[in-house]
């Protein structure tokens, strides 16, 4: 389960949800990090889709552990877009989940320079709206 925290103010882009994927964002608001598993071919995938991108089958939701490692990352030092320009520098990373798939996220809770490839991280969720939370990551 992810620790669910409230956002004091949220000025970042907001995921619009849509076909199939709304379930991901509402589950995150309850502390559950979802990926998909295909019962036909066994593939696991993120981001969620209406089909299994490997075999074309119908994937099922699966709750991920919320742990992973930093596969690669950057420290963004220049971004002209609000609100990010006021938050520089920050880490954008690809997190490899314990279950296999990767997802993009920010690593917080440590100095950007302390982040390394292979670093163990754990997910938490920041609640944007009643049924919408965005996953973030911090050192495990």
């Amino acid at each position: 389960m992810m620790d669910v925290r409230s956002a004091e103010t949220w000025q970042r882009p907001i995921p619009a949800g849509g076909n199939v994927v709304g379930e991901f964002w509402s589950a995150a608001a309850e502390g559950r990090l979802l990926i998909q598993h295909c019962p036909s071919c066994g593939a696991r995938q993120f981001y969620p889709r209406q089909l299994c991108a490997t075999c074309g089958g119908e994937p099922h939701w699966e709750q991920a552990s919320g742990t992973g490692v930093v596969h690669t990352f950057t420290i963004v030092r220049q971004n002209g877009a609000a609100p990010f320009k006021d938050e520089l520098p920050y880490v954008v990373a690809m997190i490899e989940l314990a279950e296999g798939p990767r997802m993009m996220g920010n690593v917080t809770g440590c100095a950007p320079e302390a982040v390394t490839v292979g670093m163990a991280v754990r997910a938490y969720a920041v609640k944007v709206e009643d049924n919408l939370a965005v996953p973030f990551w911090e050192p495990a």
Partner: protein
Amino acid sequence: MGQHTTDNVAAVADRTPVIAGIGLSDYPKAPHLDATGHHVQAMQRALADSGVRKQDIDGFATVGMLGADEAPALAEYLGIDHRWFDATMTGGSSFEFHVQHAAAAIRDGMCDTVLITYGSDFLSRMGRVLGTGGFMQRAQRVSGPGQWEAPYGQTLIGSYALAARRHMHEYGTTSEQLAEIAVGVREYAGLNPLAMYRDPLTVDDVLASRMVADPLHKLDCCVTSDGGGAIILTTAERARDLRQPPVYVLGAAGSETHWYISQMPDFTESGAARCGPVAFAQAGITPADVDTIQLYDSFTITVLLLLEGLGFCGKGEGGAFVAEGHLRKGGRLPLNTDGGGLSSCHPGMRGIFLLAEATRQLRHQAGEAQVPNCDIALACGSGGWLSCIAAVILGREHP
């Protein structure tokens, strides 16, 4: 049945696809032109270069940054009466995909003479915001696959930085090695009077430039500019009566590994590893036969991944290969002899410039930047976020 006399063979027109004309619009800064103006000017210059009459164009491929209907609207504006049409949009590599498609269409007889154009007033209209955001509004709702990235403040440069960091982690590639790419390309920019930046550059200059998204410095990144280009392809048969020596399309292939950067399956390998071998097989040559390479250089890491994928060096060996100086002027594989996107111009999508420069080299019209004995050139575009890669192999000799 099935017998061909000598006369019959001679009567079959030689439909081998060739590049017969190239034209570039004013760059790197052209406030007097809008995007359409770049398409127009580039087309006019390619027509003048080739000797093709506009009325003889019967195939048209284009892409731009104006919107979903830009291609058919441009065909109308330019007055192109096409019977073959292609609006494939893969970002910066679109034009290499267009050549792949146009070459097949010309061979097939679907059309005889294809115009490919690009035009952008990006710098004059938008300023230098492409790489580091500035588009997104506060609390804007993002739909589609972009919603898996938008909340995290990723930038275009940051996306390429993810690949650079992983390559460094797996193979020990260094910032000094990446900088070497920018330094070599700048040397050629010094020979291009139109290039945006022409002063010599050192590895230390690159490393001392501002870090934009670790590990990419400002001078690991391409410039932002205005500009456009046009290419005219036709049959070898028709090219005999035209102005320029024909440049033959020997091979062309493309691939897509992902679109959004967070879906990149292997951050150390581009789709060049898939399409490169296909293009080489078509051409019947190996990387050792290539005399110059025009590779998409949106960022230094882009060049490194294309080099490795195309097989000019082994996977993970790109850093050492670059440091040996092969890509520099006087090296055995000169890179981006017009000064590239890193120093000359990069108007949003640069793939058409790669084809134009490869053609100039193969015609032996590159002046001081001419690669000696240049018989085979390779142009490889990268579009999106290292997403869609396409390679085109061109030659002086009839295949």
